[in-house]
């Protein structure tokens, strides 16, 4: 996923058509401002509301902008999911292994679900399996473990066993919803069946976070992303899925909050799906088509649908008026598609050549991100990029430094990752998302977490939670690990 066109590109599109309707400009201009400040949700809501009022030409433009906003939001939530995968799995694992009295009974379930969500079905299965009736977990949650086991079986192509496990889980409302979501995720059965369960949920009642997540998954699988979006917006994304409270003989009763790890990747999927809808509609307008194609190429690469991505890449490159920078970036993307489709040497050579040429930091940033996303070595390309990084600096290279940091983060070279990302970070506003791409901040927080500088990571998410409440689960888990690993003499001084 070479992605993240800068806000500049987007603005460009707006500026290029100033002759268009004036009144609607307000919504577009305001939305673009929000977007610039990474207030994606506000920007999106504004445009969604404005769409019906716009004439055709303007609507296409708005759709393009909206599509891009969703796309960035998708990337961001995917970054959250990546960071959460590290932090939350650590935390849940530690909770499971803590051998003192008052140990959590629910950590195992949440660990299993998180592992399942990130595709580690073997471990997920093991933990689900351990949730026997004597585990101290209530029957409702035990049934959810059954549903989870069903999903594990499905992923192992044991369809009969999966269906059996799903059906044996029971028919309590939450379980039925969980089963429908599991089936929807698996693609077992038809959309109507899952939707019937989802639509049976009383819309009057406030949804529990877990139920909301199930609905989100069902609507997504059933091709109803707008419904999924409405569901997401109906509740607090920072709310815990379940709070386990312990009995205390005297004093304070301990409580542990658990969160649905899957929510973050579900949100990423949702925003990507919404982006697809908007961008494809924008592409039906002749003037917006070239730009929409650029983003669609990016989107389909992200979805892993490489043939469609390739089609858009080609279409974009066929535009004679496509500017050089975006042409190059599209070539970087093309190489990523190649890499993913097995043409690794060809891809690495392409990246190496582009990197060696130097020049536009946005293009070079895309190379580093493509290498990071592909998990490629990119020895030649990275050597050139590192040289470029030594010589160049300034805010213009912020995204480039972030990209290089991301490459090293994925390579687990955290010291280097931090060095580059800190170079790219605006120090005057170090935690502000207006000044620093929140995606970069999420990566940096992960790097700091990895080297046990917990407070740096916590500070980053503290600010970010004001705009993206879903990061709460990362914060809680990071605090949890910090409290377990902290070793200090307990000094405090007045200053």
């Amino acid at each position, binding site marked *: 996923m070479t992605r993240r066109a800068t806000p*500049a590109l987007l603005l*460009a599109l707006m500026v290029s058509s100033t002759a268009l309707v004036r009144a609607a400009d307000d919504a577009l201009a305001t939305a673009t401002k929000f977007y610039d400040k990474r207030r994606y949700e506000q920007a999106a809501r504004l445009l969604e509301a404005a769409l019906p009022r716009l004439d055709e030409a303007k609507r296409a433009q708005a759709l393009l902008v909206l599509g891009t906003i969703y796309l960035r939001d998708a990337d961001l939530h995917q970054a959250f999911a990546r960071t959460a995968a590290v932090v939350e799995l650590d935390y849940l694992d530690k909770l499971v292994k803590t051998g003192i009295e008052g140990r959590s009974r629910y950590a195992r379930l949440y660990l299993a679900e998180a592992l399942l969500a990130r595709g580690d079905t073997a471990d997920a299965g093991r933990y689900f399996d351990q949730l026997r009736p004597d585990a101290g977990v209530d029957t409702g949650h035990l049934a959810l473990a059954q549903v989870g086991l069903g999903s594990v079986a499905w992923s192992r192509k044991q369809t009969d066993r999966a269906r059996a496990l799903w059906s044996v889980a029971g028919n309590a409302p939450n379980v039925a919803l969980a089963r429908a979501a599991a089936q929807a995720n698996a693609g077992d059965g038809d959309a109507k069946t899952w939707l019937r369960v989802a639509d049976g949920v009383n819309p009057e009642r406030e949804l529990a976070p877990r139920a909301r997540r199930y609905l989100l998954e069902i609507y997504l699988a059933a091709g109803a992303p707008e419904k999924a979006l409405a569901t997401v917006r109906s509740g607090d994304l920072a709310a815990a899925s379940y709070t386990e409270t312990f009995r205390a003989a005297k004093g304070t009763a301990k409580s542990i909050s658990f969160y649905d790890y899957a929510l973050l990747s579900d949100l990423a999927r949702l925003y990507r799906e919404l982006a697809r809808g908007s961008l494809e509609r924008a592409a039906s307008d002749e003037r917006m088509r070239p730009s929409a194609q650029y983003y669609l190429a990016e989107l389909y690469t992200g979805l892993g649908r490489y043939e469609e991505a390739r089609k858009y890449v080609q279409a974009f490159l066929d535009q004679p*008026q*496509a500017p050089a920078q975006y042409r190059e970036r599209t070539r970087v993307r093309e190489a990523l598609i190649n890499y993913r489709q097995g043409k690794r040497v060809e891809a690495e050579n392409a990246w190496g050549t582009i990197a060696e040429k130097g020049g*536009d930091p946005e293009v070079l940033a895309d190379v580093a991100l493509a290498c990071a996303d592909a998990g490629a070595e990119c020895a030649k390309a990275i050597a050139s990029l590192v040289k470029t990084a030594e010589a160049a600096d*300034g805010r213009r290279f912020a995204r480039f430094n972030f990209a290089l940091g991301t490459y090293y983060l994925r390579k687990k070279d955290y010291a280097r990752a931090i060095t580059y990302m800190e170079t790219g970070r605006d120090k005057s506003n170090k935690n502000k998302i207006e000044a620093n791409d929140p995606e970069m901040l999420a990566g940096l927080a992960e790097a700091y977490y990895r080297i046990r500088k917990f407070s740096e990571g916590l500070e980053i998410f503290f600010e970010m939670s004001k705009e993206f409440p879903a990061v709460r689960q990362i914060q809680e888990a990071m605090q949890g690990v910090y409290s377990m690993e902290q070793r200090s003499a307990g000094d405090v001084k007045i200053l």
Partner: protein
Amino acid sequence: MLLLRRSMILLAALALPVAADDEPAPEAAGIEPEFVRPLVPIAAGRNDSNPLWSPDGALIAFERSRGDDKEIVIARANGDIVQTIYQQRNAAPGKNSFFFPGVVEKSSYNAGISWSPRGERFVYMSNAGEGNYDLYLREADGSTVRLTDHKEKDGHAHWSQTGERIVFISGRSGKGDVYLLDLVAKTTTALTGGEQPYLYPQWSPDGTRIAVIRGTNENHDIYVLEPGRNPPVPPRALSTWRYDDLRPVWSPDGKRIAFYTNYNPAGDPKTWAIAVVAADGSDPTEGEGLAARLVATDVIPDVERGPAWMPDSRRIVYVRNEKQAFNPIYVVDVDQRSNIWLRTGTKINHDVNCSRTGVIAFRAQVDQWDQIFLAKLKETP
């Protein structure tokens, strides 16, 4: 590279701050100025600082920060804003109108302006958003010329008031040294060398000598260079003691130099005073002799510039570290050694600068934000 923006709409003026409740002691009853007024209407949400009069006093430049943006504003003495200056880098090449961003990116750092003698041009330091500080010249027509290009920092530029010559500090020798840039001959000459680093050069009003600080850590001394002398003469020390002497400023008549020093009997390195010495080096450079040249104590030094001389070359306006009064402004007569409180009614004063016509510009905090104020002393017989 450079954008000029027409004056911006400002919020309606608020009332002047009333005189403080906890004013300085009655024995220093102070003097009422002829007027005190904000330069531009008072507004919240941004901090203004560092006023600097043009040589003829017609224009005043100051810095304005709003969030992350820092720009230089140029205004007339009546508050009309003439232009707002901020740096932008050129759009990346290769973009055509189809995608052309036209997005302004104010990501550069610009500071330290110095006016040309006629005030229609100025020199300043900028990194142009590229991570390397060099000097730039803004011409009268609004175009910008890059004056220096070196990977080490160039800064602290000061324009001679008698011609096309700029002194500045560059790190190109490996430490801070003074360089002379001749705008006509287009030559750059090193004026200093040796072990000790130099900072903040200032031309004498007649353009023949340069006051500068030399030294390290908390021990800088004041030196005077005479670049035109043949044969060359070594820098002449105006202070040699072990205290920190910073930011020399020539009196308008060129006879004296005022500077901040952290000399004080208690030996507290963070307590500052103003010393005034003869520019020809005839005063003692250390010991009690120099200590006797202190004209004001408990001074809050300005960060960017030195003590503010009045046009009469007799008085200096400065900010005093009187905590209860939140940094009041004082005027010292350097001959009489009389320090008089100037009742501006403002608090957290700072960045004092006097025009050729005797109008004092400074910044002060109103509610939570810094504003530029102007004040003028009543003419005394």
